[in-house]
């Protein structure tokens, strides 16, 4: 077991280092520091100003270790990212770490309720659809799912803001307030939109899982013993389907922290998604690469956690 954990950990570290290298290639060589400076200062900035900007933001050193072993951007990039010293924003010189810490709370306040409400809504519906498999209810359900999946998230957002926010005036169109009394009113609309846009894919996924489980031998045995269909669904199918469902939830946890780019930007929630969109709009490369790194790191950690828990639970995984 120890060897398995070590091997898996080593692989996770390797992937994180690989991500950092890709980021370096994308943000330091494909877009050279000169391009970044010119995007910040304007196309017609004099070369002196560009050099000055590069010196101020620490971009004025050689890129690769073979150019200068002691002082190069590649090693600097690795040491800074791995010690979580993200430095200053390229756009307005604000510390990136402060921003991330401030954005984590609003992001979580949207994504955590969204995850749980999604489970609460999608699982009963998909159980129902799987219960009526091969009937008109099943076919209608699947068709509605495909229908719901075919609408662009942009249209869901614009439609909900227009219909619920502007015409019906149930909830504010956008905005955010950390006050726990006001917060639910502001979060209502993005949560509704998030549920609508995710429900189609979720129900289809869970339906497939349930159908796979209900084709198993133990379900047939239970039916032969005389167990009712409802009891089979709740005791034999749902219980066994909890493993893939749980895997999906665990894999979704890292993304709770990074928030939802579209929802946060449209509904004015100052979370990590909004920070990312602002960084894209402002050509803020240092913030953008930090966000990509954090997202990847969380994903790697999530995968590691899932794999290790499998290793603990299922002895077959260890000896592979």
């Amino acid at each position, binding site marked *: 077991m120890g060897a398995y954990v070590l091997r898996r950990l080593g692989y996770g570290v390797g992937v994180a280092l690989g991500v950092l290298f890709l980021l370096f290639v994308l943000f330091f060589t494909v877009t050279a520091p000169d391009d970044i400076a010119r995007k910040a200062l304007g196309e017609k900035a004099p070369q002196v100003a560009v050099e000055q900007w590069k010196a101020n933001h620490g971009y004025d050193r050689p890129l690769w270790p073979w150019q200068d072993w002691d002082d190069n951007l590649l090693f600097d990039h690795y040491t800074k990212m791995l010690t979580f010293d993200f430095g200053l924003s390229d756009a307005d010189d604000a510390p990136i770490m402060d921003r991330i810490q401030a954005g984590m709370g609003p992001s979580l306040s949207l994504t955590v309720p969204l995850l749980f409400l999604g489970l609460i809504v999608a699982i009963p519906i998909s159980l129902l659809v799987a219960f009526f498999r091969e009937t008109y209810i099943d076919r209608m359900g699947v068709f509605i799912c495909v229908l719901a999946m075919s609408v662009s998230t*942009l249209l869901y957002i614009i439609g909900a803001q227009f219909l619920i926010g502007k015409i019906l005036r149930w909830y504010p169109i956008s905005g955010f307030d950390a006050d726990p009394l006001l917060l639910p009113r502001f979060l209502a609309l993005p949560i509704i939109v998030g549920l609508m846009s995710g429900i189609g894919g979720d129900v289809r996924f869970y339906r497939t899982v349930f159908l796979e489980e209900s084709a198993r031998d133990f379900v047939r045995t239970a039916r032969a013993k005389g167990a009712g269909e409802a009891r089979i669904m709740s005791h034999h199918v749902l219980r066994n389907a909890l493993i893939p469902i749980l895997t999906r939830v665990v894999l979704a946890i890292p993304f709770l922290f990074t928030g939802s780019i579209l929802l946060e930007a449209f509904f004015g929630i100052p979370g990590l998604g909004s920070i990312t969109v602002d960084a894209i709009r402002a050509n803020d490369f240092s913030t953008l690469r930090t966000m990509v790194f954090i997202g990847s790191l969380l994903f790697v950690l999530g995968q590691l956690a899932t794999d290790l828990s499998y290793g603990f639970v299922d002895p077959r995984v260890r000896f592979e």
Partner: protein
Amino acid sequence: MMGLAPHMLSNLVVLALLVGLLGLSRWVRRRRIWLESAQAIWQRRRLAIVVIAAYLSIALLDSVAWVGGVPEGVADVLPNQSLSVLDRLFLDTREASYSAPFADFEWTGGEALRHPGSHVLGTDILGRDVLYLALKGARVALLIGGLTSLISIPLALLFGVTAGYFGGRFDDFVFFLISTLASMPGLLLLIALIMALGKGTFSVCLALGVTGWVGFCRLSRAETLKLRELDYVEAARALGVSEVRIIFRHVLPNLAHLIVITFVLTFSALVLSEAVLSWLGIGVDGSWGQMIDGARNELSRDPIIWWNIGAAGAALFGLILAVNSVGDAIRDVLDPRTARTSE
């Protein structure tokens, strides 16, 4: 393109596409499994296939273009410009106004229109016919889905099949590359690539292709690992058949159903993600995503301007729904796994 005008290139692509489709249909007709699958899919989703064919023909009409042959008044405005069949259909009704569907007078100012009721879906804020713009988006959408698949599927097959078949160090490297790319947040990697590559149709497709090949690469690698161990592959190897021939004759044909399923299912995802990119300001010119984004704020006017966003949204929704439902049917028919569970 070395002295070749862009519209001539697009005409050649149309020709190549038509020849390719003809060849494909002949090929399918000669193989019984594929013929039966195609018939089963056609029987399940007739309407959706007709809808996709309609979108495709609109896109083809918009791709066949030539210079000249326009009426007098228009030739002064657009001298020596190539116009597609679709452009020519909408030449007469061009009118610089802002009007609602079937309107008799201008929305702003209230002046009478020269051609009352000619704009079936109204015009946008720049006076362009909305129906024309919505139809023109079909070409862009199919281009995004098609070109990106042409980049990502061969890339995924190249790496996935060779890694799975030969194994060893190369397989380790490919697997590491896949896990690294898969761990980066998709949309962010996409944005980073487009910011690095610059804007434009080709670089957007390239970025979408580079981020999108990972999933299929993993799938084809896993599938090749299984196929490699099969008896007939071993028999071929024992008979001294070359590795390249084994891959092309025994491995790739067994991946064909996966290629078709992946192509159709990622197509809709690609078109939808282009809409998001348009909203971020890094989309493709003339796409439905750009129309939706441009008309977003028009909804807050009074009276409400709904026809713009409605037309683009409906066109996008129609294509995606048709492709998704055909994709479902294709997966049901071709994928042995779903065929087994639905028994």
